[in-house]
């Protein structure tokens, strides 16, 4: 319990040595994923599963999920569970619509962040100052955020050109970056459909097609979060509030203050995610725009083991499945089943090598079942692809919950001076 104040990068609890994830390993994982995808692409002929268009769309869909997840990461690293992310995100979409159509896209971004941060401030007030259960407060904020956005929208947007009670007037576009020559060159390679090479080209090309400035800010925020939380004294103190607030208190850390910082930041990031949805994805505020992405963000954070890198991977994965579903959904997701078969088989073989027969058998059985599904059908119904992220999260939690390590004092109510 007292390991929260070690000055290391990673607080290790298990005695088993864990491999540090370094840049070469990350690159290897990415290469492996591309290899797998291109193998499946060649076998199935479903070209869309690794096309630059899909990958570009995947990134656009991953950003709001990632921002919500990053919001969850900040709050939970300081020990406050935030399931009010969805409500804060909704506030963000309204703020972006309100500011965006009147004073331009950047004002929309600013107001979206501010609206989300206000939601975060409320959550901090209720959970930190008044010591109410975090989940209770989050549920209430989801109700309140939705009602507030809908009410204000009907006050602010009705009667404006292009606006109404469920929609804001159009928001002007943010600048987006594209590199046409590189895009053309890489596009030529992609069109050849060579094994692996074309897929790498597609991945690179995805970043040369229109790429919103807000997307770049989002990437910077993920990296920035890593540096602030894991490389600065501020971050160490903030994380210590999530691991053992009473130990932090005994070292003179003002735990309340850090929790406030974290939860307000959390709301601001969720608001930014909402602003991205309104400004970049839809060019307007729309009622029901978030569609549960706050919850998926939370799932991405858990998938990523409360770490920024893992969170980005989770958001990327969920964004990818979402993009596949939107572009020729049935066929592409059907091809993805083969990826699942390959991954499960690999897990089964790995477990067999380690002489763990039980897990190996379970892996093999599931691989066989999915393979049977793949062989007997031509398409996965669109309704099923819609909940791919949620099933993935459940599976990850069910299979790896013991390896996940949330902050030790996550969700516990802290009162100053009441440490045992």
């Amino acid at each position: 319990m007292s390991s929260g104040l070690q000055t290391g990068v990673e607080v290790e609890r298990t005695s088993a040595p864990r491999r540090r994830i370094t840049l070469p390993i990350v690159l290897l994982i990415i290469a492996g994923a591309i290899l797998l995808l291109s193998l499946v692409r060649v076998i199935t002929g479903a070209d869309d599963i690794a096309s630059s268009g899909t990958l570009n769309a995947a990134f656009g869909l991953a950003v709001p999920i990632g921002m919500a997840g990053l919001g969850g990461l900040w709050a939970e690293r300081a020990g406050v569970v935030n399931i009010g992310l969805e409500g804060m995100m909704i506030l963000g979409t309204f703020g972006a619509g309100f500011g965006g159509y009147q004073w331009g896209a950047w004002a929309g971004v600013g107001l979206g962040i501010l609206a989300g941060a206000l939601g975060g401030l409320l959550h901090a007030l209720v959970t930190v100052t008044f010591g109410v259960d975090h989940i209770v407060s989050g549920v209430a904020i989801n109700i309140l955020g939705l009602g507030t956005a809908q009410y204000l929208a009907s006050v602010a947007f009705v009667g404006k050109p292009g606006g109404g009670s469920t929609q804001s007037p159009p928001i002007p576009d943010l600048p987006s970056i594209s590199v046409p020559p590189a895009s053309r060159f890489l596009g030529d390679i992609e069109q050849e459909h060579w094994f692996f090479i074309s897929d790498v080209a597609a991945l690179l090309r995805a970043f040369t097609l229109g790429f919103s400035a807000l997307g770049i800010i989002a990437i910077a925020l993920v990296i920035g979060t890593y540096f602030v939380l894991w490389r600065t004294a501020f971050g160490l103190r903030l994380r210590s509030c999530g691991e053992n607030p009473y130990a932090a208190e005994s070292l003179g850390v003002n735990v309340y203050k850090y929790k406030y910082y974290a939860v307000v930041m959390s709301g601001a990031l969720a608001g930014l995610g909402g602003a991205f949805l309104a400004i970049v994805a839809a060019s307007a505020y729309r009622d029901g725009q978030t569609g549960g992405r706050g919850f998926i963000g939370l799932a991405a954070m858990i998938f990523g083991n409360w770490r920024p890198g893992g969170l980005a991977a989770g958001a990327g994965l969920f964004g990818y499945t979402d993009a596949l579903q939107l572009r020729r959904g049935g066929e592409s997701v059907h091809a993805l089943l083969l990826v699942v078969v390959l991954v499960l088989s690999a897990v089964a073989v790995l477990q067999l090598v380690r002489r763990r027969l039980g897990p190996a058998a379970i892996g093999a059985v599931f691989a066989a079942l999915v393979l049977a599904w793949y062989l007997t059908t031509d398409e996965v119904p669109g309704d099923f692809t819609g909940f791919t992220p949620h099933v993935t999260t459940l599976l990850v939690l069910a299979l790896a919950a013991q390896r996940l390590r949330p902050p030790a004092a996550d969700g516990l109510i802290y009162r100053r001076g009441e440490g045992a």
Partner: protein
Amino acid sequence: MNRFDPRRILLTLAAPAMAIVFAFIITSLVLLAAGDPIGETWRTILDVGSQPRSISLIVNSATVFYFSALAVAIGFRMNLFNIGVDGQYRLGVFTGALVGGAISLPRPLHILVIVLVAMVVSALWAGIAGILKVTRGVSEVISTIMLNFIATGLIAYFLRRVAVPVAGSNNIGTEPLPASGRVGGLSLIPDSPLQIYGFIVVAVLAGVGYSVLLNRTRFGFDLRATGSSETAAVASGVNVKRMIVISMLLSGAVAGLVGMPVLLGEAYSYSLAFPAGLGFTGIAIALLGRNHPVGIAIGALLWAYLDVSGNPLQILVGVSSEIVTIMQGVIVLSVVVAYELVRRYRISQEQRRVARQLDEAAGPSEPREPQGVGV
């Protein structure tokens, strides 16, 4: 605990009263800031309580909310957050409607089958979260949220396969229930053109059952003990894992009743227009009512009242009906804060009282001895 103490009752009532006053102030401020008419809005909301038709609507909504809140409350008493009531009831009512439309049985049996199917399906869906929690340590908060989304997808998929067009609309739904599967209404409200769901009887029974189960049975004692202190419960021989699975199943089974009043008494089929999101309302109402069967009933009536009062606002005063949602959200937040403040106040009062009694027992001038010497 049960001794009559006016101070205690006053304090218990103080929290919700404070919350409602606070919500009134905040909502008025929001109206003021938005430039909407404050006086007329409140007058319209208050008027709703005097119209027989609105009262029927309120009682009917409250019946539905009551089941949902009861399902959540069972989990709460055990420190389990069943956020998945939403998915559970929708899956249950969908399957119930499907089965009910496909079979034909004599009257009471037909209804019984529909209700049982819904309860079992909902219970099993909730049970997944329970099993994941005890075998794999997965937090039920996350798993039930995920299961909600999965339920939505599953229902959409199967509905498309079995659906028939709903008469008079371009909506699709399950095969309508035959007359033997329907529950008639009761004319409880005088002068009202609407009837009250016959299922309200079941709601009352469920409330009584909940109270008896929790307060008068060994199971209920174990459940409350586990909720208060897991370690103490383990020490007294409670199998916590078993309790978690059973409470999740029980909570899910009650969730299966949520859709029943509407299905059996009004809609007769599950369509895309079937009320959704009732599970989240249930969470809010369980919090308002402090998991007490009577408290929940009052909370459900209050919530339904606000819901119904939103409708005329748009038409009569031109104020968006979502102002009501804001008020509901503020009430929940301020109620939980108020309960917490009252709880703290009570503890500090208690400590002061004990300290005073100890002082008196020890005598005015003697120094206090440790370990009860001189008592």
